Protein backbone atom coordinates (compact mmCIF):
# COMPACT_ATOMS: atom_id res chain seq x y z
CA UNK A 1 0.00 0.00 0.00
CA UNK A 2 3.08 2.25 0.12
CA UNK A 3 2.65 3.32 -3.47
CA UNK A 4 -0.77 4.78 -2.62
CA UNK A 5 0.86 7.01 -0.01
CA UNK A 6 3.49 8.03 -2.55
CA UNK A 7 0.82 8.84 -5.13
CA UNK A 8 -1.06 11.01 -2.62
CA UNK A 9 2.24 12.65 -1.66
CA UNK A 10 2.77 13.43 -5.35
CA UNK A 11 -0.71 14.97 -5.59
CA UNK A 12 0.16 17.24 -2.65
CA UNK A 13 2.90 18.81 -4.78
CA UNK A 14 0.57 19.78 -7.63
CA UNK A 15 -1.57 22.91 -8.26
CA UNK A 16 -4.54 20.63 -7.43
CA UNK A 17 -4.07 21.59 -3.78
CA UNK A 18 -4.65 25.27 -4.41
CA UNK A 19 -7.43 24.53 -6.90
CA UNK A 20 -9.30 22.15 -4.59
CA UNK A 21 -9.01 24.65 -1.73
CA UNK A 22 -10.47 27.34 -3.98
CA UNK A 23 -13.36 25.05 -4.98
CA UNK A 24 -14.14 24.45 -1.29
CA UNK A 25 -14.89 28.17 -0.99
CA UNK A 26 -17.38 28.25 -3.84
CA UNK A 27 -20.86 29.20 -2.60
CA UNK A 28 -22.25 25.91 -3.97
CA UNK A 29 -19.59 23.91 -2.12
CA UNK A 30 -20.38 25.78 1.10
CA UNK A 31 -24.09 25.16 0.55
CA UNK A 32 -23.50 21.42 0.07
CA UNK A 33 -21.31 21.27 3.17
CA UNK A 34 -23.77 23.11 5.38
CA UNK A 35 -26.88 21.09 4.52
CA UNK A 36 -26.84 17.71 6.21
CA UNK A 37 -28.96 15.88 3.62
CA UNK A 38 -27.33 17.43 0.54
CA UNK A 39 -24.38 15.02 0.22
CA UNK A 40 -26.39 11.81 0.88
CA UNK A 41 -29.04 12.98 -1.64
CA UNK A 42 -26.44 13.43 -4.38
CA UNK A 43 -24.73 10.17 -3.37
CA UNK A 44 -28.11 8.46 -3.78
CA UNK A 45 -28.58 10.00 -7.25
CA UNK A 46 -25.05 8.79 -8.07
CA UNK A 47 -25.96 5.27 -6.90
CA UNK A 48 -29.24 5.29 -8.88
CA UNK A 49 -27.38 6.41 -12.01
CA UNK A 50 -24.76 3.64 -11.73
CA UNK A 51 -27.61 1.18 -11.05
CA UNK A 52 -29.23 1.93 -14.40
CA UNK A 53 -25.89 1.96 -16.22
CA UNK A 54 -24.62 -1.22 -14.58
CA UNK A 55 -27.83 -3.26 -14.91
CA UNK A 56 -28.14 -2.31 -18.59
CA UNK A 57 -24.49 -3.20 -19.19
CA UNK A 58 -24.98 -6.50 -17.36
CA UNK A 59 -28.09 -7.38 -19.38
CA UNK A 60 -26.33 -6.55 -22.65
CA UNK A 61 -23.39 -8.72 -21.60
CA UNK A 62 -25.69 -11.59 -20.60
CA UNK A 63 -27.35 -11.33 -24.03
CA UNK A 64 -23.93 -11.47 -25.73
CA UNK A 65 -23.02 -14.49 -23.59
CA UNK A 66 -26.31 -16.15 -24.54
CA UNK A 67 -27.41 -16.44 -20.90
CA UNK A 68 -30.51 -14.26 -21.06
CA UNK A 69 -32.59 -12.01 -23.33
CA UNK A 70 -32.64 -14.66 -26.04
CA UNK A 71 -36.19 -13.68 -27.06
CA UNK A 72 -34.89 -10.48 -28.66
CA UNK A 73 -32.44 -10.19 -31.53
CA UNK A 74 -28.96 -8.87 -30.78
CA UNK A 75 -29.76 -5.70 -32.74
CA UNK A 76 -32.87 -5.00 -30.62
CA UNK A 77 -31.03 -5.77 -27.36
CA UNK A 78 -28.22 -3.40 -28.31
CA UNK A 79 -30.54 -0.46 -29.14
CA UNK A 80 -32.58 -1.11 -25.98
CA UNK A 81 -29.67 -1.11 -23.52
CA UNK A 82 -27.38 1.36 -25.25
CA UNK A 83 -29.81 4.27 -24.73
CA UNK A 84 -30.06 3.64 -20.99
CA UNK A 85 -26.32 3.15 -20.60
CA UNK A 86 -25.39 6.50 -22.10
CA UNK A 87 -28.23 8.52 -20.53
CA UNK A 88 -27.33 7.06 -17.15
CA UNK A 89 -23.68 8.01 -17.75
CA UNK A 90 -24.75 11.67 -18.11
CA UNK A 91 -26.58 11.49 -14.75
CA UNK A 92 -23.63 9.62 -13.24
CA UNK A 93 -21.08 12.26 -14.30
CA UNK A 94 -23.38 15.16 -13.33
CA UNK A 95 -24.01 13.81 -9.81
CA UNK A 96 -20.31 12.88 -9.58
CA UNK A 97 -19.27 16.48 -10.33
CA UNK A 98 -21.58 17.72 -7.55
CA UNK A 99 -20.01 15.19 -5.15
CA UNK A 100 -16.54 16.32 -6.26
CA UNK A 101 -17.47 19.93 -5.47
CA UNK A 102 -18.92 18.87 -2.10
CA UNK A 103 -15.56 17.55 -0.89
CA UNK A 104 -12.89 18.88 -3.27
CA UNK A 105 -9.79 18.30 -1.15
CA UNK A 106 -10.82 14.84 0.06
CA UNK A 107 -11.28 13.78 -3.58
CA UNK A 108 -8.68 15.64 -5.59
CA UNK A 109 -5.82 15.00 -3.15
CA UNK A 110 -6.64 11.30 -3.06
CA UNK A 111 -4.82 8.63 -5.05
CA UNK A 112 -7.83 6.32 -5.11
CA UNK A 113 -10.05 9.05 -6.60
CA UNK A 114 -7.69 9.43 -9.58
CA UNK A 115 -7.39 5.65 -9.98
CA UNK A 116 -11.18 5.52 -10.07
CA UNK A 117 -11.33 8.29 -12.70
CA UNK A 118 -8.73 6.41 -14.75
CA UNK A 119 -10.78 3.20 -14.58
CA UNK A 120 -13.94 5.17 -15.43
CA UNK A 121 -12.33 6.50 -18.62
CA UNK A 122 -11.18 2.99 -19.55
CA UNK A 123 -14.71 1.67 -18.90
CA UNK A 124 -16.26 4.38 -21.10
CA UNK A 125 -13.85 3.81 -24.01
CA UNK A 126 -14.22 0.05 -23.62
CA UNK A 127 -18.04 0.31 -23.62
CA UNK A 128 -17.95 2.36 -26.83
CA UNK A 129 -15.66 -0.14 -28.54
CA UNK A 130 -17.69 -3.09 -27.23
CA UNK A 131 -21.01 -1.68 -28.48
CA UNK A 132 -19.48 -0.79 -31.84
CA UNK A 133 -18.19 -4.29 -32.42
CA UNK A 134 -21.58 -5.73 -31.47
CA UNK A 135 -23.25 -3.30 -33.89
CA UNK A 136 -20.97 -4.41 -36.70
CA UNK A 137 -22.02 -8.02 -36.21
CA UNK A 138 -25.73 -7.75 -35.44
CA UNK A 139 -26.78 -8.79 -38.96
CA UNK A 140 -25.17 -12.21 -38.68
CA UNK A 141 -25.12 -12.52 -34.88
CA UNK A 142 -27.84 -15.08 -34.30
CA UNK A 143 -26.74 -17.14 -37.29
CA UNK A 144 -23.14 -17.76 -36.29
CA UNK A 145 -23.35 -17.92 -32.52
CA UNK A 146 -19.97 -19.50 -31.82
CA UNK A 147 -17.77 -17.03 -33.61
CA UNK A 148 -17.71 -14.35 -31.00
CA UNK A 149 -15.03 -15.48 -28.56
CA UNK A 150 -13.47 -12.02 -28.32
CA UNK A 151 -16.83 -10.32 -27.77
CA UNK A 152 -17.75 -12.86 -25.11
CA UNK A 153 -14.52 -12.06 -23.29
CA UNK A 154 -15.34 -8.37 -23.72
CA UNK A 155 -18.80 -8.92 -22.23
CA UNK A 156 -17.24 -10.29 -19.04
CA UNK A 157 -14.47 -7.67 -19.00
CA UNK A 158 -16.86 -4.71 -19.20
CA UNK A 159 -18.86 -5.98 -16.21
CA UNK A 160 -15.66 -6.49 -14.20
CA UNK A 161 -14.47 -3.00 -15.20
CA UNK A 162 -17.60 -1.29 -13.91
CA UNK A 163 -17.33 -3.30 -10.66
CA UNK A 164 -13.78 -1.96 -10.32
CA UNK A 165 -15.05 1.59 -10.86
CA UNK A 166 -17.65 1.06 -8.11
CA UNK A 167 -15.01 -0.41 -5.81
CA UNK A 168 -12.87 2.68 -6.46
CA UNK A 169 -15.82 4.86 -5.51
CA UNK A 170 -16.33 3.08 -2.21
CA UNK A 171 -12.63 3.11 -1.33
CA UNK A 172 -12.21 6.88 -1.83
CA UNK A 173 -13.50 7.12 1.76
CA UNK A 174 -10.86 4.66 3.02
CA UNK A 175 -7.84 6.06 1.17
CA UNK A 176 -4.63 6.02 3.19
CA UNK A 177 -3.67 9.65 3.62
Amino acid at each position, binding site marked *: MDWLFHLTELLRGTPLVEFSLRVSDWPFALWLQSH*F*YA*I*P*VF*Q*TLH*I*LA*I*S*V*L*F*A*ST*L*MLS*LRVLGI*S*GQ*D*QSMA*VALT*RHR*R*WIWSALVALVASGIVLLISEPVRNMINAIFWIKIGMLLVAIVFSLAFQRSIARRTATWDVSIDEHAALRAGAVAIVVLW*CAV*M*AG*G*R*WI*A*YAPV
Partner: protein
Amino acid sequence: MISNALWQTIENSSFSSAIASSEWMFPTIETLHVVAIVTVIGAIAMMDMRLLGLSSNRTVRAVAHDTLPVTWIAFGLAVVTGLLLFVSKATSYMVNPYFLWKFGLMALAGLNMAVFHRHVSKGMDDWGTPGHAIPINAKLAGALSLALWAVIPFCGRVIGFTLGVYYTA
Protein backbone atom coordinates in the same frame (compact mmCIF):
# COMPACT_ATOMS: atom_id res chain seq x y z
CA MET B 1 -34.40 -1.70 21.32
CA ILE B 2 -36.25 -4.64 22.89
CA SER B 3 -33.26 -6.90 23.30
CA ASN B 4 -30.20 -4.71 23.36
CA ALA B 5 -28.33 -7.50 25.14
CA LEU B 6 -28.72 -9.71 22.08
CA TRP B 7 -27.22 -7.11 19.71
CA GLN B 8 -24.47 -6.53 22.26
CA THR B 9 -23.67 -10.25 22.35
CA ILE B 10 -23.62 -10.43 18.55
CA GLU B 11 -21.39 -7.39 18.28
CA ASN B 12 -18.98 -8.69 20.91
CA SER B 13 -18.52 -12.12 19.33
CA SER B 14 -15.02 -12.79 18.05
CA PHE B 15 -16.39 -13.09 14.52
CA SER B 16 -17.95 -9.59 14.64
CA SER B 17 -14.90 -8.08 16.30
CA ALA B 18 -12.70 -9.52 13.56
CA ILE B 19 -14.70 -7.57 10.95
CA ALA B 20 -14.86 -4.42 13.05
CA SER B 21 -11.18 -4.32 13.93
CA SER B 22 -9.80 -5.28 10.53
CA GLU B 23 -8.57 -2.44 8.34
CA TRP B 24 -9.77 -3.94 5.06
CA MET B 25 -12.67 -6.29 5.88
CA PHE B 26 -15.44 -3.74 6.46
CA PRO B 27 -14.67 -1.67 3.32
CA THR B 28 -14.31 -4.84 1.23
CA ILE B 29 -17.65 -6.27 2.38
CA GLU B 30 -19.17 -2.81 1.91
CA THR B 31 -17.88 -2.73 -1.68
CA LEU B 32 -19.53 -6.09 -2.43
CA HIS B 33 -22.70 -4.79 -0.75
CA VAL B 34 -22.68 -1.72 -3.03
CA VAL B 35 -22.19 -3.80 -6.20
CA ALA B 36 -25.01 -6.13 -5.09
CA ILE B 37 -27.46 -3.37 -4.22
CA VAL B 38 -26.66 -1.46 -7.43
CA THR B 39 -27.49 -4.62 -9.41
CA VAL B 40 -30.71 -5.20 -7.46
CA ILE B 41 -31.91 -1.61 -7.96
CA GLY B 42 -30.95 -1.54 -11.65
CA ALA B 43 -32.67 -4.84 -12.44
CA ILE B 44 -35.82 -3.90 -10.49
CA ALA B 45 -35.90 -0.45 -12.14
CA MET B 46 -35.79 -2.14 -15.55
CA MET B 47 -38.95 -4.08 -14.71
CA ASP B 48 -40.61 -1.01 -13.12
CA MET B 49 -39.97 1.15 -16.17
CA ARG B 50 -41.51 -1.52 -18.39
CA LEU B 51 -44.59 -1.49 -16.14
CA LEU B 52 -44.72 2.29 -16.48
CA GLY B 53 -44.69 1.89 -20.24
CA LEU B 54 -41.14 3.09 -20.89
CA SER B 55 -39.12 0.91 -23.31
CA SER B 56 -42.26 -1.09 -23.94
CA ASN B 57 -41.32 -2.82 -27.17
CA ARG B 58 -40.90 -6.09 -25.29
CA THR B 59 -43.35 -8.27 -23.36
CA VAL B 60 -43.54 -7.75 -19.60
CA ARG B 61 -43.07 -11.50 -19.21
CA ALA B 62 -39.75 -11.43 -21.09
CA VAL B 63 -38.48 -8.50 -19.01
CA ALA B 64 -39.52 -10.27 -15.78
CA HIS B 65 -37.91 -13.50 -16.96
CA ASP B 66 -34.58 -11.69 -17.52
CA THR B 67 -34.54 -9.44 -14.49
CA LEU B 68 -35.84 -11.78 -11.75
CA PRO B 69 -32.83 -14.17 -11.61
CA VAL B 70 -30.40 -11.23 -11.63
CA THR B 71 -32.42 -9.52 -8.90
CA TRP B 72 -32.51 -12.58 -6.63
CA ILE B 73 -28.85 -13.55 -7.06
CA ALA B 74 -27.73 -9.98 -6.35
CA PHE B 75 -30.21 -9.69 -3.48
CA GLY B 76 -28.72 -12.85 -1.95
CA LEU B 77 -25.27 -11.28 -2.09
CA ALA B 78 -26.66 -8.06 -0.59
CA VAL B 79 -28.22 -10.00 2.32
CA VAL B 80 -25.05 -11.98 3.09
CA THR B 81 -22.77 -8.92 2.92
CA GLY B 82 -25.37 -6.83 4.75
CA LEU B 83 -25.47 -9.35 7.61
CA LEU B 84 -21.68 -9.29 7.88
CA LEU B 85 -21.72 -5.48 8.06
CA PHE B 86 -24.57 -5.61 10.58
CA VAL B 87 -22.95 -7.96 13.09
CA SER B 88 -19.82 -5.80 13.27
CA LYS B 89 -21.83 -2.81 14.60
CA ALA B 90 -25.14 -4.39 15.61
CA THR B 91 -25.91 -2.09 18.57
CA SER B 92 -25.24 1.12 16.58
CA TYR B 93 -27.45 -0.07 13.72
CA MET B 94 -30.36 -1.18 15.89
CA VAL B 95 -30.74 2.29 17.43
CA ASN B 96 -30.31 4.10 14.10
CA PRO B 97 -33.68 5.33 12.76
CA TYR B 98 -32.44 5.34 9.15
CA PHE B 99 -31.45 1.68 9.50
CA LEU B 100 -34.93 0.84 10.82
CA TRP B 101 -36.57 2.91 8.06
CA LYS B 102 -34.47 1.13 5.47
CA PHE B 103 -35.80 -2.23 6.61
CA GLY B 104 -39.39 -0.99 6.87
CA LEU B 105 -39.20 0.29 3.30
CA MET B 106 -37.60 -2.94 2.08
CA ALA B 107 -40.45 -4.90 3.65
CA LEU B 108 -42.91 -2.62 1.81
CA ALA B 109 -41.02 -3.16 -1.45
CA GLY B 110 -41.17 -6.93 -0.90
CA LEU B 111 -44.89 -6.75 -0.14
CA ASN B 112 -45.46 -4.67 -3.29
CA MET B 113 -43.58 -7.27 -5.32
CA ALA B 114 -45.57 -10.15 -3.78
CA VAL B 115 -48.89 -8.39 -4.46
CA PHE B 116 -47.77 -7.75 -8.03
CA HIS B 117 -46.86 -11.37 -8.72
CA ARG B 118 -49.97 -12.76 -7.00
CA HIS B 119 -52.65 -10.35 -8.17
CA VAL B 120 -51.61 -7.43 -10.35
CA SER B 121 -49.76 -9.60 -12.87
CA LYS B 122 -52.97 -11.48 -13.78
CA GLY B 123 -53.62 -11.27 -17.50
CA MET B 124 -50.05 -10.09 -18.03
CA ASP B 125 -49.79 -12.02 -21.28
CA ASP B 126 -52.54 -9.78 -22.71
CA TRP B 127 -51.77 -6.33 -21.37
CA GLY B 128 -48.03 -7.02 -21.15
CA THR B 129 -47.47 -7.25 -24.90
CA PRO B 130 -46.08 -4.32 -26.88
CA GLY B 131 -48.75 -1.86 -27.99
CA HIS B 132 -51.24 -2.76 -25.25
CA ALA B 133 -52.37 -0.36 -22.52
CA ILE B 134 -50.93 -1.18 -19.10
CA PRO B 135 -53.56 -1.35 -16.30
CA ILE B 136 -53.35 1.38 -13.68
CA ASN B 137 -52.61 -1.14 -10.90
CA ALA B 138 -49.53 -2.39 -12.71
CA LYS B 139 -48.37 1.18 -13.31
CA LEU B 140 -48.87 1.99 -9.63
CA ALA B 141 -46.90 -1.11 -8.60
CA GLY B 142 -44.04 0.01 -10.87
CA ALA B 143 -44.11 3.60 -9.61
CA LEU B 144 -44.24 2.53 -5.95
CA SER B 145 -41.35 0.12 -6.45
CA LEU B 146 -39.23 2.80 -8.16
CA ALA B 147 -39.93 5.28 -5.37
CA LEU B 148 -39.15 2.77 -2.60
CA TRP B 149 -35.91 1.64 -4.24
CA ALA B 150 -34.81 5.26 -4.57
CA VAL B 151 -35.35 5.99 -0.87
CA ILE B 152 -33.82 2.70 0.38
CA PRO B 153 -30.24 3.52 -0.75
CA PHE B 154 -30.74 7.06 0.61
CA CYS B 155 -31.42 5.59 4.07
CA GLY B 156 -28.41 3.33 3.57
CA ARG B 157 -26.19 6.31 2.80
CA VAL B 158 -27.46 8.37 5.75
CA ILE B 159 -26.71 5.45 8.12
CA GLY B 160 -23.05 5.97 7.29
CA PHE B 161 -23.29 9.63 8.36
CA THR B 162 -25.24 9.02 11.57
CA LEU B 163 -23.52 5.99 13.15
CA GLY B 164 -22.59 6.96 16.66
CA VAL B 165 -25.15 9.79 16.67
CA TYR B 166 -27.85 7.67 18.30
CA TYR B 167 -27.50 5.79 21.58
CA THR B 168 -29.68 3.44 23.63
CA ALA B 169 -31.22 5.14 26.63
